[in-house]
């Protein structure tokens, strides 16, 4: 104890050491290895050797730019739809939830209590060719007689949206709930219309929630491969599908590694630009 007293400055480092060491060994170092692998050359049969093979990156982008772009388009669409769907919902709970707020919030995160893969399989059932939704859409002539819902881009985007929607709704709710309703009343007392009060008071104050929700939805969505696998066909495959099959099926480590880095660099670029605007302290809570 007395040693600690004499070296008070050491205490925070003692508290940090075990956890940060774990992250260093099992997060930072592996990323380093992945980087090392991404510059290797060779084949599975003869082994891979390190050779500063930067052409792996050029190959990764030129061979798979289609999947890469598709990942960002799907993830972007899913993020926007999730924002549009969950903003009014979060607003309703925050301002009209009363003493039922916590229970309503529970309903929002309820999908998380069903295993990720199982709820995606449930969407397979909902969108199935002989399912109810496809039947109704065919009766309304919104879908051709032999048209499909499953195995389309729509199905994949719908699945991604559903799976990550709570990540959007929760931070939105937290931001909206923190707004003092008196501020909105004050705006209306000062002759702002309902719309003006919303646009100039509520919306700006909820922006931190929008930013956080956007990141929390977009990042996992861009790297996802389960929705494309279960709800789509190879024509809907995203970059995650490619990385997965290169790594685990084709055993082409350098290609998988360089693709992972391309994906991460693209995402990190976006995240860090956000973090610059907001400050990492606010993003991590």
């Amino acid at each position, binding site marked *: 104890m007395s040693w600690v007293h004499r070296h008070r400055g050491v205490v925070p480092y003692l508290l940090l050491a075990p956890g*940060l060491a774990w*992250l260093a060994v099992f997060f930072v170092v592996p990323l380093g290895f992945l980087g090392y692998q991404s510059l290797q050359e060779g084949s599975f049969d003869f082994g891979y050797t390190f050779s500063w093979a930067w052409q792996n990156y050029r190959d990764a982008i030129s061979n798979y730019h289609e999947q890469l772009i598709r990942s960002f388009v799907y993830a972007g669409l899913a993020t926007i739809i999730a924002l549009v769907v969950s903003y009014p919902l979060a607003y309703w709970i925050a301002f009209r939830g009363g003493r039922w707020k916590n229970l309503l919030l529970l309903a929002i995160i309820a999908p998380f209590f069903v295993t990720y893969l*199982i709820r995606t399989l449930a969407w397979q059932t909902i969108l199935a060719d002989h399912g109810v939704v496809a039947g109704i859409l065919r009766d309304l002539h919104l879908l051709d007689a032999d048209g499909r819902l499953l195995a389309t881009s729509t199905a994949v985007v719908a699945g991604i949206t559903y799976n990550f929607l709570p990540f959007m709704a929760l931070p939105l709710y937290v931001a909206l709930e923190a707004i003092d309703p008196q501020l909105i009343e004050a705006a209306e007392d000062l002759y702002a219309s309902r719309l003006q009060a919303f646009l100039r008071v509520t919306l700006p104050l909820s922006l931190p929630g929008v930013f956080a929700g956007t990141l929390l939805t977009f990042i996992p969505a861009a790297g996802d491969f389960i929705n494309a696998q*279960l709800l789509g066909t190879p024509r809907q495959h995203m970059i995650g599908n490619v*990385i997965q099959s290169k790594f685990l099926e084709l055993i082409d480590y350098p290609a998988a590694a360089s693709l*992972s880095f391309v994906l991460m660099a693209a*995402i990190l670029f976006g995240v860090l630009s956000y973090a610059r605007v907001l400050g990492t302290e606010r993003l991590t809570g």
Partner: protein
Amino acid sequence: MTAGYAASQPAVRARPLARARYHALTAYAVLAFGYLLLPIAIVIAFSFNDPAGRFNYTWQGFTLDNWRNWDAVPGLRNAMVTSLEVAAISSLVATALGTLIALALVRYGFRGRSATNLLIFLPMSTPEIVLGASLLALFLSLQFATGFLTIVIAHVMFNISYVVVTVKARLAAFDRHLEEAAMDLGANEWATFCRVTLPLIMPGILAAGLLAFALSVDDFVITYFNSGSTITFPLFVWGAARVGAPPQVNVFGTMIFVIALGLMLANILLQQKDSR
């Protein structure tokens, strides 16, 4: 629902247009909840389905057989047990490590704060597939056999950040005066921590532990890369989905859902009791 509703009613009653708008938002919320809960209803309903063939996709008729024969699918129970073991170990370790980091971040000023914050934030902002692939790259390079142990290592890694964020939130809302009072009354730092600080942040630590447990049970991607021949529940579902998942998978999914929901409901009810 009536309490919060009644508060803003008088203003609404005055103008029909405002009233319509008011109810439109409520109607929208009901629809949105329907959308969120529909797949859950499907999962539960199909645990009672009596599928004709291998595929549990279309409704064939109600049966309790799947629940009665919940253990009839080889490997399913073992996969579930493995998942629970991984979750128990990894959430305990991650909660301990993450709580210490949170304490350091909230309580102390030190050099390297922002670097620490960044290191906590990065795993959460890295796609799971990159986390999984990079860990596998490490294990392959070290020729370290993947299996139960590597799954636990991976789960602790991705859970630490979530624990830090959760416990930090609780610590930030903490009234430091309570600690000062304890010290004024003659308690030393260690006694103050054990008798005042720890009990007060315990709900936050528990919440973080539960979150870590839930994330661990649910994780597929990172586990998929680092599992070797060990099979967790999500991995079992993945394998089964390729040949048609048996309805028992829905039985297990429903059980997880009911248990998780029950825990959360109990937590909310306890909180409301406290705040009254």
